[in-house]
């Protein structure tokens, strides 16, 4: 079982998990409005599905903030 940190809080992964699966598990409703950083490195959207999480990983969901669309 891998122990990772998501937005500064510990999270345990029961099964092998990709970044794409983690996004789903964390109920990120609008993945388009989130940028993902893994161990301080920016991860390209197209690599979410192939990025496997391992013990000790630090994941940060960075939210786009900048006002709204009309």
């Amino acid at each position, binding site marked *: 079982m891998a122990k990772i940190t998501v*937005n*500064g809080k510990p999270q345990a992964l029961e099964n092998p998990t990709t970044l794409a699966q983690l996004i789903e598990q964390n109920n990120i409703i*609008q993945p*388009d*409005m989130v*940028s993902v*950083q893994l161990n*301080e*490195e*920016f991860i*390209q959207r197209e690599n979410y599905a192939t990025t496997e999480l391992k013990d000790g990983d630090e994941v*940060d969901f*960075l*939210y*786009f*903030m*900048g*006002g*709204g*669309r*009309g």
Partner: protein
Amino acid sequence: MMDFTEEQVNRYSRHILLQDVGVEGQEKISKGKVLVVGAGGLGAPVAFYLAAAGVGAIGIIDGDVVDLSNLQRQIIHFTEDVGRPKVASAKEKISRLNPDVQVTTYQTLLTAENALEIIRDYDFVVDGTDNFPVKFLINDACVMLKKPFSHGGILRFDGQTLTYVPESACYRCLFHAPPPPNAVPTCSQAGVLGAIAGMLGTIQAAEALKYLTGVGELLTNKLLTFNAKTMDFRTIKTKRSDKCPVCGAHPTITQLIDYEQAACDISDRKKH
């Protein structure tokens, strides 16, 4: 060496008393030139605190006029300013607060065409805009000009900010490209607690003053985020991305881009 008048020594005494600032630091502030992009929720507190601090030259760019719905958070505009250009309203308040400050106004939108020209003249830029196209434009222009800036974003009960100086992580290092326009919440869905603008704007103003005086550590290679419901503040470490499209090893963005996306104020204006 600047010669402060007795009145100025008195006006800035609480800065001068600060060991880290002193007369020397106040001189740097008084010689500083800061551009505030947007005279709205963030720009209002930023402009007020920079003016109070005696920043020598403040530029304000905004193409909008004051709307009644702005007054919930854009504290530099008063009820009688409704209908007035935001830059004119802001300039008047700044001058009344501190006549030492030279104010330059640009009653227009920042665009790919005018950004480099306008930003070039300033020491530091504050992003106080409400839309992604201009946020990315400010970032790219500042990276190209090697100009430090403070990014700020607010939404509902949340705020985020980072400071860029040449060689540190830029906004695009963290957010490679604007989100698809259809994913961005509409203005009516979004909303914002007015005081959040003050919380974030004053952080941005502090960053500008820290940059001018050289005091302390800037929010570089960090993203500060907070949520006002829980009052949780978090500083996320970041770093410059090799693959960043504008500051990375092989930049694909070599000229400025005007992304399409309506800002709240623009669509509000169309409705009226």
